[in-house]
């Protein structure tokens, strides 16, 4: 019977040399880079600019993203609400965008985070002047 494979080990220095040996062959591929980027642009150009989210999770992310953008817009026209703008800039990039929605989605994976997300949604909706 073979031993458990994750317990089959090589000395650390051999592994490090293997990694360096494997990465020692550098290949620059500017022509391929360009062709792949052009293919991606052509591929996604056929897609509608807005796509319906395919699951509740992504529906939540999409709703949050739209709400965050709307909140950011409101904050820009109301100078007194600077603290709220910073609170919605989850990743601290200075811009409220889809990355903030991903950051909220990651919070979704933490236990007990759903209540915080619900509160955030409520706050954003209230900023828009409607009931949550």
């Amino acid at each position, binding site marked *: 019977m*073979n*031993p458990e*494979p*994750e317990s*089959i*080990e*090589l*000395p650390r220095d*051999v*592994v490090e*040399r*293997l*990694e*360096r*040996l*494997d*990465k*020692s*062959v550098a*290949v620059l*591929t500017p*022509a*391929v*880079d360009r*062709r*792949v*980027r052009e*293919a*991606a*642009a052509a*591929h*996604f*150009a*056929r*897609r*509608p*600019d*807005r*796509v*319906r*989210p*395919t699951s509740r999770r*992504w529906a939540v992310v999409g709703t949050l993203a739209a709400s965050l953008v709307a909140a950011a817009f409101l904050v820009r026209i109301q100078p007194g609400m600077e603290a709220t703008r910073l609170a919605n800039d989850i990743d601290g990039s200075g811009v409220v965008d*889809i*990355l903030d929605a*991903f950051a909220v*989605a990651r919070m979704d994976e933490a236990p007990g985070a759903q209540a915080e997300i619900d509160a955030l949604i409520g706050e954003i909706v209230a900023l828009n002047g409607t009931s949550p």
Partner: protein
Amino acid sequence: MSNRRFDKLSDAELVALCNSGRRQDAVDAFDSLYRRHRDYVTRVSLRLCSDREIAADVLQETFIYLLRKFPPSGDGLVLTAKLRSLLYPVARNLTLTAVKKRQRSEHTADVEPDQLPDPRTIDPEYENLAKAMTGLSSRHREVLLLRFVDDMRVNEIAEALDIPTGTVKSRLHFAVGALKDKLKIA
């Protein structure tokens, strides 16, 4: 905005954007995936043949294959393991097919599927290791690199190579022993 804005996202998040994100988000997310895994796919191909032209073609075809998984042409991609577990077999099969095609068209045997970069062109620091690796069969060398360089688990290797986990275990066990013998490591 820079197309590097998504570089900090995980593979799963980038794949989700390619599946259902808006047009420009999908383009930028795919570009991040490409730049993140470009060198890996190239190395996979060069492990199997030393032909850089083939490796460049394989790189392009591998990512075109991935691209077609996403809407509107594909149904979308669901990641059940590391993305590299998906990229590896694609790059491997494309490389082996390209090598065979070239051998048929050129009637030459100067490109062997098992060939590694010539040890004589390798830094002397790694010469012994390169020779020891060349002394292993391609199958044993492959599982060794997947396990220790690519940091894949046994089930991921089995999925990438489409072989049973028991086969991976036995190849890995043999490969580690053989490499230690060649390097005279206890």
